[in-house]
């Protein structure tokens, strides 16, 4: 029985995490894909608690 290795190239090196940077203090933190949806609440910087839109932030 043999196994084939499939889609490892794209999957493994793409990772799975979106990061956002706080516009006020520049702290990077991970955000879920749901934070990019239109109905999402503003992101909240875990360092300084500044609220901002992930879509408009540096990612």
């Amino acid at each position: 029985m043999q196994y084939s290795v499939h889609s490892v190239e794209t999957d493994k090196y793409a990772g799975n995490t979106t990061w956002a940077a706080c516009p006020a203090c520049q702290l990077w933190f991970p955000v879920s894909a749901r934070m990019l949806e239109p109905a999402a609440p503003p992101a909240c910087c875990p360092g300084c608690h500044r609220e901002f839109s992930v879509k408009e932030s540096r990612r």
Partner: protein
Amino acid sequence: MSRDLRTFLAEQSAAVWELPRGLSRRYELTALQHALDARGEYPVLLARDTLGADGARSAIPVVTNLTASRVLTAAALGLPDHRCTAEWFARRSAGGIDPQVLARDAAPVQEVVLTGDAADLGRIPALTQHELEPGPYLTAAHATTFDPDTGVDNTAIQRCWLRTARRMSWFPYPASHNARNLRKFHGRGEPCPVAFWIGHHPAVLMGTQAKLRYPQSHWRAAGGVLGEPLRLVPSITHGERIMVPADAEIVIEGWAPSGVLAADGPFGEYTGFLGPQTPAPVCDVACITMRSDAIYHDYGSGLTDMLVPDNMAMEGKLYELVKSVAPSLRNVHVPASGRRFHAWLQLAEPVRGEARDALVAALAYRRTKWVVAVDDDIDIFSAAALDWAIATRVQWSRDAIVIDDLSGSSLDPSLPAGASTASKMGVDATLPPAAAPGAPRPVPPVTTVPADAATRAGALRDGADAAGWPRF
């Protein structure tokens, strides 16, 4: 007397480390848990006069690392040996004992009732555990909701970030039964009633983690694991619609309004990684009740403190799942080092195909990712014994089963973005059976020494001074 957190602490006082006063709840207690984990030491930690981020002292003591030890947690269940959990837990949580309902004036958890502005979350000495977490979180809050269609309650540990005096965000994992109840209320445009109870005997904490169907009350299972009826009391805000354990330490009652989401997290998860910031419902606090000398319970998230009770409950669930297709199953171990992803199955003389049946059954459980089946000569609580079995009894192309697209945990850091299913592997590390009863297995014999020689060697070693010997 009913058993609760304080009866357990009194019984196990030798295992409790009462810390110096004035430790910070911001990182300091959690750092201590990490340091102890790294040394393989698992005392219960009791901290008085802890300091919040603002430097204010709390009169409410904090207990953490309550369930970091398998030995102590097994003792809480009344088990003489932590290695006997799987069969015991499957039996006791399936059996169940009906809860008993107390009048409010008989419920210790309602000795103090705080409403209005007095229901201030700032009174709760919650910890900020890890870097990149936005603030203090409840980590041992058992969120209790009910299904509006049937009235059946559901309870699960779910994190809450204390955002302001009267509002916290609350993260019911989207696949959880609490999230289903929440969606039903919100689908009707109604706020979801909820109560969060904190602090109880470890057997109750574990009993409420028994993995049940939907909708199915957790109170009976908790009583089964505790070995006596769980004493309940109607919550102040929601009455008999949401009962809470009368012998808990603290209860936070409130409503999750429809249409309100707040960014919650990042938060340290059982994987040892931080889960990302994500939209979560909020809970507006209506009432806080507590004992007059309440103790606050915290779970070290992603530490053995949280993994041990969860994994022991999971051993019970896997035992039940696997035993029904593989009667030769003897025992199950979900090692804390594998988080929730690894499970070791011990089988006694499985018939042809049975080890693979067992593997496939265990892999069907959402939390598992790698399952290994071994014979009953292998101690599944010894990483070295497991390693030996895998090294000497496996031909990978013959003995490994890889199955893609089974349900998995979205928190698995190795999954591609957006994946909702996982790739899993089972490994049959059992030896082939003997051709006839009493005949040797068709494999080489294992190296051994005679029993009397082993006894004499042990005695010789016990008489030696080993202080200067290398340990590794």
